């Protein structure tokens, strides 16, 4: 029922949003920092990459600059919180709305087309894969590299300090961890990943648009929570895998919903479907533990 192209398209978008989910995992889960900056840093990454691509930069360099731009945006949010004591959620909203204007400034207009520019995907079209498989192949590599790097980072001394900061800031400070610096680093890393996602999305879609960021946070969270419901995040590695699985599941769900004419569903119902999916994903694990508890009690 799903065509090849629709299926690979869902994988492609899912892999890109896997990077977003990594970022949201870092902020929401590791640091316990509800960060809405991503709605701005996603189009920011796209904007920076698009402008540099049109200038004739190397696509990977342009994507790297998008990562740096995203990190800068994240650092601003974290500094507003750490240095100026602005509530984390509010700090992120401030950066997010500021980014709308900044993105327009960077691009100089609301939409930059990349349909004829060389992108990270261009050199791959010659290797014998079908047109719609190329981006999936490339993005699998990008996501695996990001996953391994993040996993290693989380196990490093700094990574452990960051996790301690999120888990128990008081205790972390008592252990001599500079919690403020950890928050800045973590939120910056998180938004750097989202910036890369935005840059890759613009390149695979053929355009950067200022409105691209709408709902990125909700979709990222839905992916994260959905993934955690399927892959129990008992270790860092499992949690990271859950991010990717969740993001791909979400996109496949949308692809099926687009094809679910037999259920009478249409694309305009997607927001409702998203809300139902996220609610189920949040509620079901609790129900599962309750049932499990009852069963074990009976056995005892």
């Amino acid at each position, binding site marked *: 029922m799903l065509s090849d192209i629709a299926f690979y398209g*869902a994988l492609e978008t899912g892999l890109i949003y896997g990077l977003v989910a990594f970022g949201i995992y870092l902020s929401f889960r590791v640091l316990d920092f509800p960060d809405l900056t991503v709605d701005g840093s996603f189009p920011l990454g796209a904007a920076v990459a698009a402008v540099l691509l049109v200038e004739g930069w190397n696509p990977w360099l342009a994507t790297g600059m998008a990562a740096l731009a995203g990190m800068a945006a994240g650092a601003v949010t974290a500094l507003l919180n750490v240095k100026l004591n602005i509530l984390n959620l509010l700090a992120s909203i401030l950066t997010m709305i500021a980014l709308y204007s900044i993105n*327009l400034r960077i691009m100089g207009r609301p939409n930059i087309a990349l349909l*004829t520019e060389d992108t990270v995907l261009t050199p791959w079209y010659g290797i014998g894969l079908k047109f719609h498989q190329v981006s999936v192949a490339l993005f699998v590599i990008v996501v695996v590299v990001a996953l391994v790097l993040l996993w290693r980072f989380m196990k490093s001394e700094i990574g452990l300090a960051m996790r301690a900061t999120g888990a128990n800031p008081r205790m972390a400070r008592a252990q001599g961890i500079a919690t403020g610096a950890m928050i800045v680093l973590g939120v910056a890393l998180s938004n750097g990943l989202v910036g890369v996602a935005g840059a890759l999305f613009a390149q695979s879609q*053929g355009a950067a*648009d200022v409105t691209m960021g709408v709902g990125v946070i909700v979709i990222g969270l839905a992916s994260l929570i959905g993934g955690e419901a399927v892959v129990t995040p008992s270790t860092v590695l499992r949690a990271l895998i859950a991010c990717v699985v969740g993001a791909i599941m979400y996109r496949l769900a949308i692809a099926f919903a687009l094809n679910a004419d037999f259920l009478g569903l249409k694309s*305009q119902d997607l927001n409702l479907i998203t809300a139902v999916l996220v609610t189920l994903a949040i509620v079901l694990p609790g129900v599962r533990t309750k049932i499990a508890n009852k069963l074990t009690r009976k056995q005892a």
Partner: protein
Amino acid sequence: MVKNTLRTLIGASLLAAASLVQAQETRVVAITQIVEHPALDAVHQGVRDELAERGYKEGENLQIMHESAQGNSAIASQIARKFVGEQPDVIVAIATPSAQTVAAAARNIPVVFSAVTDPVAAKLIESWEKPGANITGVSDMLPIKKHLDMLQRVMPDAKRIGTVYNPGEANAAALVKLLEQHLAERGLELVKAAATKTSEVLGAARSLAGKVDAIYLTTDNTVISAAEAVISVGQRANIPVFAADTATVERGAVAALGFDYYKHGRQTGAMVARVLEGADTATMPVETMEELDLFVNPEAAERMGITLAEDFIQDAQKVVKSGE
């Protein structure tokens, strides 16, 4: 025996059905739309109606797929992939973002865009006259010159013209730039007020009060969604509000030389039909709206402090009378 007759009967009817299908080949048209919005919905309806009039009847020899991305570009891209995967005969892409996602995904399928203001800047085509590949369509580039002629006919003494626009909307930003150039050529000044959300339109319109002699609104999706806010300011501050689309005249603007998006859709549908009949998109020039309708609303004009001349009202294709 009964079983056998039944079998032959079923066989015969299957054969008949198969030959019927062969005789009447079903063409597939897929329509993707970035967001639900009265003007874009009208384009969609226009495409359907034109195809029906040209003998492509849905359910008989035509299958139409239609999806809206609700303003979300990730969903727009998935819709594009879905359509490309199903290999329809033509993909119709309504508005710039949808057209770009389809252009990125479709290599061999003919694409007809609609409601795209500047297809060259959007990199959909190489040139207006010779699109060059699998994409062509109808542009909704506004005839701003004619609009300003109309405005000056009603208000020959107007010196400063205000507009409310969303700087984040590609089409709107391009139009405002054009508007500024055209006004400068006539020695008029443009006063801009930005609104990035519908909730900001009222504040933006208020900021124009006292600074401008008239307000002209382009086809900015954000602003038109909240056109009543601008109109209410126009009534209170006695600033006549002119629009680029006729629907806004029905909502209380003084006049518009429009551009009926339904007709825009009909024109798009005609292009789709030509592609279905085998025309090559690479050599089909991009079309713009030729037919313009003058809509006037004399009562709205009174409420904004001006009286429309009789001959101007007589030139109108439609005179709007409020039911109040």
